[in-house]
C-alpha cells in the first residue's frame, strides 16, 4: 500500500474534523478525495504530510508511519497546499532552486520528471512568482512539489480558482505523472474532476460516504434521473418541491435533476402537473447520473 489510513480521527477542541477514516491507496494510483468545503479533506492531507498528529488511529505513507517515521515521509512525499505557497518575490527559477536545495538535490538531477511541465513555464523563469497567472502558479507549485522525485504526491485542491482550460491541462499532467509510477492523492470540490480519478472517496462532515471507482459509484445510483427544463427555473424548482411524488430535485446547469418516488414513473403525469402550475416550454428526458448525483444521494 502506498497510503493507508486506519480509523483516523482528529478533533479541533469540540469540533470533530474527521472521524474514523480508513482507506488505502495502491501504488501508482490516482486517488481522489471528493467533498464540499469543510468536509475534512485538508485535515486528512495535513495528517498524511506529518503537519498534524492524528487524534486516534494510525496511518502510513510509502510504508512509513506518519507519527514515528515522519522524517522519512518528509523526504519521500511532495505536497502542494491548497493555497499558493511559494515565494512571490522570488523568480520561477529561484523558487525551484530553493526547493531543490532544501531537499538536497538540484534541478538538473530530476529534470526528466518535471520536464514537460517546466517547459511551459520556462519562458517566464526570470519572472517573479507573484506576477504569474493562476494556471502558471499551479504549474510552478507542481514542479516544486516534484523536484525531489517523491514517491507520493499530495495535491490539496490544486485546481480551485484555476480557469477551465488550465484545469484540464493540469489533470492531463497528473495522468502523465501517474505513468511515471507516482502515487497521487488529490482532493477537489469539483465533481466533474472526480471522474478522472482511478478511485474516489466521497467525504462529508469528516466521514467517508463511499469509496469506489467513479463508474461503480455512478452505477450504484438507484434511481432514474430526469433532466427537467422550463422557462422559469425558480418557479420550476418550487413547483417540483411541492410535487407529492418528489424524491429529490437539484439544479444542474440549465436543467434540474429530478428523481421520483414511484417505480413506475410516467413522464406525462409530471408534464401535466407542471403545466397546471403555469410553466411553459417544459422538457423532460432521461439523463445519465453522474458523480454529483451520486454524492447528493449519499449525502441525503
Amino acid at each position, binding site marked *: 500500500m502506498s497510503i493507508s489510513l486506519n480509523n483516523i480521527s482528529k478533533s479541533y477542541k469540540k469540533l470533530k474534523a474527521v472521524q474514523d477514516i480508513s482507506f488505502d491507496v495502491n501504488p501508482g494510483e490516482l486517488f481522489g478525495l471528493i467533498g464540499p468545503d469543510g468536509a475534512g479533506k485538508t485535515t486528512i492531507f495535513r495528517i498524511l504530510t*506529518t503537519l498534524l498528529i492524528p487524534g486516534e488511529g494510525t496511518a502510513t505513507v510509502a510504508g512509513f508511519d506518519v507519527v514515528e517515521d515522519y522524517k522519512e515521509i518528509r523526504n519521500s512525499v511532495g505536497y502542494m497546499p491548497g493555497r499558493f505557497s511559494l515565494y512571490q518575490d522570488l523568480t520561477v527559477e*529561484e523558487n525551484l532552486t530553493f526547493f531543490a536545495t532544501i531537499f538536497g538535490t538540484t534541478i538538473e538531477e530530476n529534470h526528466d520528471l518535471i520536464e514537460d511541465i517546466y517547459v511551459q513555464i520556462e519562458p517566464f523563469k526570470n519572472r517573479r512568482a507573484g506576477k504569474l497567472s493562476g494556471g502558471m502558479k499551479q504549474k510552478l507549485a507542481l514542479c516544486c512539489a516534484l523536484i525531489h522525485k517523491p514517491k507520493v504526491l499530495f495535491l490539496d485542491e490544486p485546481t480551485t480558482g484555476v480557469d477551465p482550460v488550465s484545469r484540464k491541462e493540469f489533470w492531463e499532467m497528473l495522468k502523465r505523472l501517474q505513468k511515471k509510477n507516482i502515487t497521487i492523492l488529490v482532493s477537489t470540490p469539483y465533481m466533474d474532476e472526480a471522474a478522472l480519478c482511478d478511485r474516489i472517496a466521497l467525504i462529508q462532515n469528516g466521514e467517508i460516504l463511499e469509496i469506489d471507482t467513479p463508474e461503480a459509484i455512478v452505477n450504484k445510483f438507484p434511481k432514474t434521473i430526469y433532466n427537467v427544463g422550463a422557462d422559469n427555473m425558480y418557479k420550476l424548482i418550487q413547483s417540483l418541491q411541492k410535487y407529492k411524488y418528489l424524491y429529490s430535485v437539484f439544479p444542474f446547469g440549465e436543467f434540474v435533476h429530478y428523481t421520483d418516488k414511484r417505480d413506475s414513473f410516467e413522464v406525462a403525469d409530471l408534464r401535466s402537473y407542471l403545466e397546471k402550475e403555469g410553466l411553459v416550454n417544459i422538457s423532460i428526458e432521461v439523463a445519465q447520473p453522474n458523480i454529483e448525483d451520486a454524492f447528493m444521494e449519499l449525502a441525503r
Partner: protein
Amino acid sequence: MKTIGYIIQKEFKQIFRNKGMLPIIFILPILQLVILSNAATYEVKNIKFAYIDYDHTSTSRALVEKFNASSYFNVLTDFPSQEIASAALLRGEVDVVLEIPNNFERNLLKEKTADLSITINAIDGAAAGVENGYVNQILQTFNKDVKTNIIDTSKKPVQSVAIESIPSFWYNTTLDYKTFMVPGILVLLVTMITLFLSGMNIVREKEIGTLEQINVTPIRKSQFIIGKLFPFWVIGMGLLTIGLILAKAIFNIPMEGSIALLYAYTSIYILVILGMGLLISNFTDTQQQAMFIAWFFIVIFILMSGLFTPIESMPKWAQLITEFNPIKYFVEIVRMVMLKGAGFTDILPQLWKTMLYAAIMNGLAVWSYRKTI
C-alpha cells in the same frame, strides 16, 4: 551547510526586493539618529519668564537684570499685579513668574533677609524641576552679590566663610547631552530594527503559507532558523557600523575604548534580540500581532533602560525589573566603552548576563518552534 547558505541567500534577495522595507531598514534609522540626537536633550531653554515688581528699587531691578542676562530665560513682561500674572500663567503665556514684594530692598538691608515668590508652571514636571534649578542658581549668585555690594557698603563687619564646590565632569567634561544621548540612541536603533524585522519575518512565512510548504520538507529546524535569522544579525551589525560612523562624523562622539570590544559585545547582544523575535513569531499568526507584541516590549525596555531616565532614580522594584532588560546592558556597555574607554574586564558582568540571556532566549525560541501545526 549548503542548505543554510541557500536560505541566507534567499532571505537577502527577499529583503532587497522588498521596496517598502529597504528604506525602513537603512534610511529611517539614520534619520532617527540625526533628529533624535539633536532633539532629545534635558536642557530647557527659552523659558518664558515674567515678574511682578512691587518694590521698584535698584536691588529689585538688579535681580530682574540677572534673569535677563541668563540665556535660559526670556524675560517677557512685568505684570502690575498678581491676578494678571496668574491669568497669564493659566493661558500658558508664561512659564515662570517671579514676585518681588514691597520693601524687598529694605528688608534685605535691615534684616538681612527677604522673601521672594516664584510660581512655576508644572504641567511638565521634568521641565519645572529644571526651571526651578535655574532659578535657584540665579538667586544664589544674586545672594552673593548682595552680600558683597549692599551689606558691605553698610560698613558692618561681615565674615562670610563660603565653601565653594567646583564640579568637574569626568568622561563628558562639557556635559554635552549629545555625547550622552547618541550612543544610547544607537542602541535603540540596532535593537528596534533587528527585533521588528526578525519578529515579523517568520510570521510572514506563516501568513503567506510558505511555512506549511517548508514544514513538509526534510529541512532541519536549526538549519531553517539559522538561515532565517543570520541575515538580520548581519543587518544589526551593519546598523551599528552606520551608526558609529554617523556618531563620529556628525556629532564627533569620542571613541575611547576598543571598537572591536563593542562589536564583540553587540554580536552577542543581537542574538538576544533575534531569539526574542523568533519567540514572538512562534506565538503569533500575523505580522500585526507580532508587531504589537514587539512594540510592547520595546517601549518597556526603552523606558526602563536608563536611556532617558536614570535607573538609580527608579523605585527599588523597578530597578529589579531593569535587571531583566537587555537594552539596559547594551546602553551601559556602549556608554562605558565609547565614553569611558572600558576594557574587557570592565564589561564582564554585563557580558555574562547578556550571554546567559541569549542562551535562554534562543533556547526557548528553538524549543517552542514547531514544524507541525
